[in-house]
């Protein structure tokens, strides 16, 4: 068992760095997520790892701990509804508004190992004929370098490509290498991965037409949620969208976004009436 004071210390440091709220009754979660890190860093135990982090207040170790504690769970076309909305609602409305020219910018905030941005890239590739001369830019960010590296490589295990991904899309968009599957280079070139902590400033990110921020804010406290939503809104085009997870809402947290009626998880900027695709 990890000592309560160790749990509190680690929770406080992870919160400071990432906004991640770890309740102190989650000792088991801490154990299961830190044990592999302790091993990889050459410590005999989790206690040893935490002691070293304390002793040297070692920033690198504390970041590694934070990264290990965050949830990186994701899969292709997760929850499917947001991707249907993207294809059937967001793309038609935006392409009408942009008059089939210009660039549509998409941000996958907290993209983990890349399944979400690549799912969007697949849709864009499949819809190409209907999208005229519109150009697309997908920026995918995460605070964790380890998952970003995997995302950039675009290489997935047999298990990963079977969760959420229809077989036709596997055939169409992946190359096989033994029991690994790699996203084809035309899709990889559509996505730019970069490190970005949602707590840090968004200078240089620019304005986005669509921001996917799903299943991230659930790990934050209300104040952090509010701050992040305000700052995301500042990066959202006036007629742009925010897409959130099925169990999330902006209601009571943001004045800047308003739900798009009848479209679960989809938000527009407040005060901007949404035209609907159908």
């Amino acid at each position: 068992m990890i000592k309560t004071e160790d749990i509190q210390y680690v929770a406080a440091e992870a919160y400071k760095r990432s906004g991640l709220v770890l309740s102190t009754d989650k000792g088991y979660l801490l154990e299961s997520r830190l044990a592999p890190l302790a091993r990889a860093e050459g410590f005999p135990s989790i206690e040893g790892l935490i002691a070293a982090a304390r002793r040297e207040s070692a920033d690198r170790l504390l970041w590694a701990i934070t990264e290990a504690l965050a949830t990186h769970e994701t899969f292709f076309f997760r929850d499917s509804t947001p991707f249907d909305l993207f294809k059937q609602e967001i793309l038609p409305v935006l392409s009408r508004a942009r008059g089939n020219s210009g660039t549509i910018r998409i941000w996958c905030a907290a993209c983990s190992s890349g399944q979400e941005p690549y799912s969007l890239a697949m849709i864009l590739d499949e819809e190409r004929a209907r999208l005229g001369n519109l150009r697309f830019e997908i920026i995918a960010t995460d605070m964790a370098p380890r998952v970003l590296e995997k995302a950039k490589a675009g290489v997935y295990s047999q298990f990963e490509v079977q969760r959420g991904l229809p077989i036709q899309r596997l055939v169409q968009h992946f190359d096989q290498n033994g029991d690994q599957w790699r996203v084809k280079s035309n899709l990889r070139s559509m996505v730019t991965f970069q490190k970005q902590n949602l707590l840090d400033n968004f200078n240089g990110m620019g304005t986005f037409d669509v921001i996917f921020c799903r299943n991230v804010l659930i790990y934050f406290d209300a104040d952090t949620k509010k701050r992040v939503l305000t700052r995301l809104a500042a990066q959202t085009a006036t007629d742009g969208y925010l897409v959130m997870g099925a169990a999330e809402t902006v209601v009571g947290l943001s004045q800047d976004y308003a739900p798009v009626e009848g479209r679960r998880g989809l938000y527009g900027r407040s005060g901007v009436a949404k035209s609907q695709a159908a």
Partner: protein
Amino acid sequence: MKTCLVVDDSRVIRKVARKILEELDFNCVEAADGSEALEACRKQMPDAVLLDWNMPVMNGLDFVKALRREEGGDKPVVVFCTTENDMAHITEALRAGADEYVMKPFDGDIIESKFQQTGLLRAS
């Protein structure tokens, strides 16, 4: 209740698949090879077929080709479930009329995910 025909020459695999499918609310019928499976389909067309590739008497590929020529044989959703995990086999299966493809080893999450994509299950 929807019916799924589980076709595999391994009794163990059939048992594992049956357990997963019954939890997903399917009524299961079993067959040990393609020819038994075709018999079962002629008696009653299932909603879904979970289909191994390599089996004695009639293999999965020959079964799906034969099934698609049967009256009403275009209806069942056919999901391969096999250790033949390479692109060539997958595309051959799709050309022959399969709808989905599971690469072994599989688990409940994968079966559920594939059954959702083919509309056999509603997305949760």
